[in-house]
């Protein structure tokens, strides 16, 4: 019995990822400023910024993009395919200063090259990718110019009307103006544990979320008519798209701070209906609105439905909402074993299968909004470590943060998190935007134990980025699902390709349900490779 137990223990250790922070070695060395590091006078200093993986030059390797707050510039790094990233910001035309917040990617003009949106406190920018050589600011031409300063946060491309081109959703946090913002300690919403701190979001005015419809590369603001701008009483941050109701149409979940999170359910007629409360994703199980920051979607329990995970504030729990079918959710945080990490302020998060066992694990990064908390000498810290949960199957997770490698134990004031496979070896890397520090790049020192496949979907009738495509991978008697999505996590963009762990299976069946309605099936596809899937006009396989 003792030997059997030892065997299990050794197996468990060998499948731990041993994440190391390889950012320095990989050339990700620049600091991304974001407000004060010992004190933050304004809430604007607390929310930036996002991170992205995207293959902007179509060489098959994920490049890195990081957004900066005031005092720095956003930066693009080209993946040289040898474990190093070369900074190409200036040549790519992406240098820009300001209070950058989020980033999302998608091929809005269907020309085969991935474009970028960067959100700002100020005005958003749409960058058109010119054949992988450089980017051009086409905000004005695409009619995305904003008429006033807005506190734009998370964004995501999506094809909500299934017309084959990508629309754009942008969350808005609140109305902020340096000239009128109250100072730390000015009112009861400017205090934290008896410390005067930056004010808000409570006490500051709400703003409205934005939806832009794309018609041939020109956008129209349809926020009002589509029902995403009306009566908003939430401070919105992370945007997560997905077909949560299972009807084939993309819905939008928005994580909101100190106010109910929102679930915009696609009505299939160009409008959305906000139904977060009754569907069970607005509040926690105690009926309390938490401080939602980031959000991730994944089928953690293998029932074929997309579940939602949300990061929150300290003295709150993270929240896991299990989809019980047709977009109705139950909070299962405690049952899933995620209820104990209550000292962290969580931001970027992602479902990822780090050991390729076919179960989606969870990674989240943390950091407080009040650097002043360090004065208290309590267990809540401004810079804190990341959290890694291993999915044990059966709807339960185990916290393996402390044994997940040195990178997991590093303390930063982290915000954006993007996950992708930068070297196409089936082991996922994670890019983290740390406030006032260089980013982190988590890479597993120990390769995954299971087999894998990465699916690179290309739409034809569907939007070129294949956003909204639902994929089922069946291997070893189990079916896993996922969707191609823009945005997500916290103001960030992950690899647009889909990664599936398939454990010991040598091959897998793949079914793709394209937003165009076409269903495509590929049988017995060999594992451990990147599989490019071009949308066919007629259903295949079967």
């Amino acid at each position, binding site marked *: 019995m003792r030997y059997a137990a030892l065997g299990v223990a050794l197996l468990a250790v060998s499948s731990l990822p041993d994440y190391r922070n390889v950012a320095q070695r990989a050339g990700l060395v620049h600091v991304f400023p974001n407000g004060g590091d010992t004190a933050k006078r304004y809430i604007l200093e607390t929310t930036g910024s996002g991170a992205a993986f995207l293959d902007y030059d179509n060489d098959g390797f994920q490049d890195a993009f990081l957004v900066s707050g005031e005092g720095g510039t956003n930066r693009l790094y080209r993946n040289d395919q040898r474990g190093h990233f070369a900074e190409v910001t200036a040549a790519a035309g992406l240098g820009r200063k300001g209070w950058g917040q989020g980033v999302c990617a998608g091929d809005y003009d269907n020309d085969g090259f991935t474009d970028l949106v960067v959100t700002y406190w100020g005005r958003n920018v749409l960058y058109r990718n010119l054949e992988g050589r450089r980017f051009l600011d086409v905000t004005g031409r695409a009619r995305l110019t904003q008429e006033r300063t807005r506190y734009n946060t998370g964004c995501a491309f999506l094809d909500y009307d299934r017309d084959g081109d990508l629309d754009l959703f942008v969350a808005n946090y609140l109305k902020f103006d340096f*000239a009128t*913002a*109250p*100072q730390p300690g000015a009112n009861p919403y400017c205090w934290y544990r008896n410390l005067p701190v930056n004010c808000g979001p409570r*006490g500051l005015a709400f703003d409205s979320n934005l939806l832009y419809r794309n018609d041939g590369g020109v956008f129209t603001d349809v926020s009002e008519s589509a029902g995403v701008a009306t009566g908003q009483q939430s401070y919105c941050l992370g945007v997560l798209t997905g077909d949560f109701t299972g009807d084939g149409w993309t819905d939008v979940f928005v994580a909101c701070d100190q106010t109910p999170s929102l679930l915009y359910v696609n009505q299939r007629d160009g409008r959305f209906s906000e139904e977060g409360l009754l569907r069970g994703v607005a509040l926690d199980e105690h009926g309390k*609105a938490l401080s939602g920051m980031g959000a991730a979607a994944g089928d953690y329990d293998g029932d074929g439905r997309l579940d939602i995970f949300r990061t929150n504030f300290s003295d709150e729990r993270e929240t896991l909402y299990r989809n*019980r079918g047709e977009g109705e959710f*139950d909070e299962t945080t405690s049952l899933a074993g995620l209820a104990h990490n209550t000292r962290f302020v969580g931001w970027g998060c992602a479902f990822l299968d780090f050991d390729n066992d076919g179960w989606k694990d969870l990674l989240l990064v943390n950091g407080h909004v009040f650097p002043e908390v360090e004065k208290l000498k309590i267990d809540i810290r401004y810079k804190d470590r990341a959290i890694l949960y291993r999915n044990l199957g059966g709807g339960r997770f185990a916290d393996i943060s402390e044994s997940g490698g040195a990178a997991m134990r590093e303390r930063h004031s982290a915000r954006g998190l993007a996950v992708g496979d930068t070297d196409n070896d089936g082991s996922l890397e994670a890019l983290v935007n740390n406030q006032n520090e260089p980013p982190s790049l988590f890479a597993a020192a120990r390769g995954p134990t299971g087999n894998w496949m990465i699916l690179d979907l290309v739409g034809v009738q569907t939007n070129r980025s294949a956003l909204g495509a639902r994929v089922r991978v069946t291997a070893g008697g189990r079916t896993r699902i996922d969707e191609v999505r823009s945005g997500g996590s916290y103001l960030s963009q992950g690899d647009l390709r889909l990664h599936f762990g398939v454990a010991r299976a040598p091959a897998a069946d793949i079914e793709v349900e394209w937003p165009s309605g076409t269903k495509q099936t590929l049988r017995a596809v060999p594992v451990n490779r990147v599989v490019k899937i071009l949308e066919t006009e007629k259903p295949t396989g079967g």
Partner: protein
Amino acid sequence: MRAIKLLLLSASALAQNDALIEGLKQFQAGNYAAAEASLAKAQADPRGRAFLALTRAATSRCRQAAAELADQFEKNTDAEVRRLTGIALVQCQLGGNRIDEAQATAAKLRAAFPNDADVLYQLARLHMRAWNDIVYEMFQKAPASFRVNQISAEIFETQANYPAAIAEYRKAIEKNPRALNLHFRLGRALLLNSHAREALAQALQEFEAELALNPHDAAAEYQIGQILTAQQKPAEAARRYQRALELAPDFPEALLALGKWKLTERRNDEAITLLERSVRMLPRSEAARYSLMMAYRNAGRTADALREKAELEKLQKPPEGEFTEFLKKLGEKKPE
């Protein structure tokens, strides 16, 4: 101020007493010396006497004012004059350390003006003062008692100084290991002090120790249930909630907790029965309303779920005119 304005109007209308009008004007403007000089000439009018006493009380001459204040408070038929003189009388009695008299006056004031913020403020001050005096007396007369440590711990708890509270509770337990409630309070302080998982185990021990002293403590059973829930032992937790309800059948939080567990077990009908009771007892509890809404939803009772949703939304709506607008103005900095 509204009382003075009304009096000014009525006095002006009658045009009977220039001295009274002048005195009220000066009182309103805060010119107490001038007010006193005028009001002293208007003592034939009960309003003149009332405001003369109020002027003296406002300028730290309670001894001179007390009798008139008491008389006006008891006999004046004008509610506003009674309210003002009553409040001034309580302040004078408090200032003179006549706590019992102040309590008697405050009780009458409260009965007459139950929703008046000024009256409630005076009551709060009065109780705070009484509390401070008694605590001081306890520290003076019984410094070695475990009660001193207990009250110290409770004070530290209100100040969110949990390490100090824990230390004081432990001292109290050391002095009197059989005293009830100490282990319970220590358990709660341990939970508030730390986010670490170890704190759960430590607190659990304390609640168990409380139960060893008093096996009928439903609150301790409930707290253990909460810890077991956090430790992902829902079935064990449910047994504790059940036990808490056996001890105290109308324990709304335990009803809620057990109802939520039944909900996760998909025993919707049982959950609804428990949660409906919980909502009846705690109609303003967002947690109870939310769980009942979810139970109805899961049971397919959409109309009931929507009704609960509407109730929940009412509870979650910020108070009238929220604070927010006021706070924005309060903290606003003028553009340079």
